[in-house]
């Protein structure tokens, strides 16, 4: 089999996963997209392991690790999503903005020389 098929498939999977992570609002969908990203990576690892005739099977061992960690990560992620949903009755990522920096515009008055001097005096 030509090496390009699994690599193109991996790239496609990664692209779809990236789209899902960056663009989807639903937290579950984002978690699924992350799975796609991980799977794209594992596909690449397995492919290169085969292409480069990896004697020790490092790519495959890494793949096993990634599958294990992905399972744990999904479990953890789903638990977080569940808690968020319970607290806020929504799992929409677009509305989770608590960590935003509040923007207050700097007024011209604040920068006038008189106030600067008053601050210095204080």
């Amino acid at each position: 089999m030509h090496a390009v098929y699994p690599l193109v498939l991996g790239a496609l999977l990664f692209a779809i996963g990236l789209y899902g992570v960056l663009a989807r609002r639903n937290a579950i969908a984002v978690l699924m997209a992350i799975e796609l990203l991980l799977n794209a990576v594992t596909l690449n690892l397995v492919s290169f392991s085969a292409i480069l005739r990896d004697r020790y099977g490092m790519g495959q061992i890494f793949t096993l690790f990634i599958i294990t960690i992905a399972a744990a990560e999904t479990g953890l992620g789903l638990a977080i999503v569940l808690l968020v949903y319970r607290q806020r009755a929504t799992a929409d990522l677009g509305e989770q903005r608590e960590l935003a920096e509040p923007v207050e515009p700097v007024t011209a008055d604040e920068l006038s020389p008189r106030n600067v001097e008053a601050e210095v005096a204080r």
Partner: protein
Amino acid sequence: MNLLALIASLLPALGAAATAAGGRDLRHVKFWSTAPVGAALLLTLLVAIDHGSGGASVHTYSIGTAGAFHVEIGTRVTGLSAIIAVLVAGVAVCVQVFSTTYLGGEPRYPSYAALISLFTAAMLTVVYSADLVVLLVGWEIMGACSYFLIGHYWEKPEARPASIKAFLMTKAGDVPFLFGIIALGVQAHSFQINAVLAVTGQDRLHHPAWIAFLLLCGVLGKSAQFPLHSWLPDAMAGPTPISALIHAATMVAAGIYVVALLYPVFALCQAVLIVMAIIAAITMTGAALCAFAQTDIKKILAYSTVSQLAYMLGGLAVGGRSQAIYLLLAHGAFKALLFLAAGVVIHRVGSNELSAMGGLRYRMPIAYTTMTIGLLALAGIPPFSGFFGKEAVLGAAYDATGEFAAPGKIVLIFGLITAGLTAAYSLRLWLGVFHGPFPDAPHEHEAKVEAPQAELIPLILLAVPAALLGVVVLFGTGFSNYLGGWYGEAGAAGADLWPGGLTTLLSLLFALGFGGLVFLAWRREEGADPAQALLGPVRPALVNGFYFDRLIDAAVVRPARAAARFVGFLDADVIDAYVRGSGTGARGLGTVLRRLQTGSVQFYLTCLFLGVVIMAAVYAYVGTVS
């Protein structure tokens, strides 16, 4: 003898320190303000008697080398300095004794007395100094002391600007004066007065006219002559004894003294003499007119000082060095007397204004008698001292020959007019204060309100020289011989001070004519101010000193303020703009970056991804290029 002179100039300084150190203990202050100055008077008398007409006696102490100059400080005693020192110390003693009761009860009396002693020490330093740098030090200490003393009543609104004005105007003259001294010192390779005079005498002085003009600026500032004169009338905001000290012995006398001291430098160039004569002519006539119009008796006396100092400057402009110094001595005696007597009158009446006075001749007989002597001397009535001083100067102007001839004509014409004006304002002051009806209490003329003894004794002491100093002229050229020659040499054939016939006749006619006009105006309406009748519509201009302060305001004060505002603008709106701009810029940048912190995880991830893509693209591009 030089050691005595040194001690005499240091004693008042020590007295000042002891006075200031003693706190508010009145007896301590009275002792330490009078005793050291009195001792200094004795020492100056000893120096003057011991020195005789013995040329210039110099004794210096070497204190090291500064660059090209070997620095030596010390004392230089000539007949000129010896006799001026006696005047300074004598007037200072009278002023200090007078002040013990006049200002004794006031809270700031200790600092006042200490400053007077320091002032005296500074003037004695100027007089006895052997070199020009130490002279300048004393000169500047006097400037600082006059600033403090004129501003003594700093709670009065007119005293603060008056003290600042006095300081700034004298400083405006002192800056050129400093350059003149440097020019002399550089050319003589020494700041010793003897060395400077020697170089001048050998005709090795380059640009003597420029140097003389630079020095003259300082003299005009200190002696309150024409462009820099207006600080002196304003200085009346200070206590009256200060005026006696400043006007009679220190400060204003220092300017005349320096011209007499460095006389060869001034006499080298006729242009300098003519300028001096013109300034003297403008000042003596203008100030005498202003004095005639004033209503404040201290201001009358202040303008009369300006006018009399112009007489002395005029005497110096026509080559009458010993005549001018003689007038300085006589003027020192009678002007100190007049100011102290005016202080007595002001304290009893409670006002400076002429309109609040009148008919005081029965109530204060001693002040009346002494002030009459002082005014007769001021008006130049024989045989009082002022007559001989004035006639000596006018005679010198009349007899002036050679390069002194042109200034002589100017001084003679204006001097005669001023002689008349002087008699007029003296008579007006005398009539206004002591004659006519007393404004408030017409029936209490008999009750005496004499001042305490400590104030009357200085008056009587000063009245003696004011009346009798004329005996000096009986010695023919003796006074001029005592003063010494232009270069400090002994026994130079000096001028005779005996009044000339024609000038005496003319000046007495002027005095009688102007005085008669005043008397007639006063007689026509008893108690009224003769100045009102005689001057009419020009009076407001004269009361305000020809509006000279407005001219200064327009020519100097407003441009200086505008420049200050411009500098303030440069500081606040140009230089500070960069400082503020850095702050504003940082905050603005922060505001922009804050907008990136949206809180959306997906937005952050997108940025991260884009960053990785860009980095990869750059890496790939760089990889392909290299």
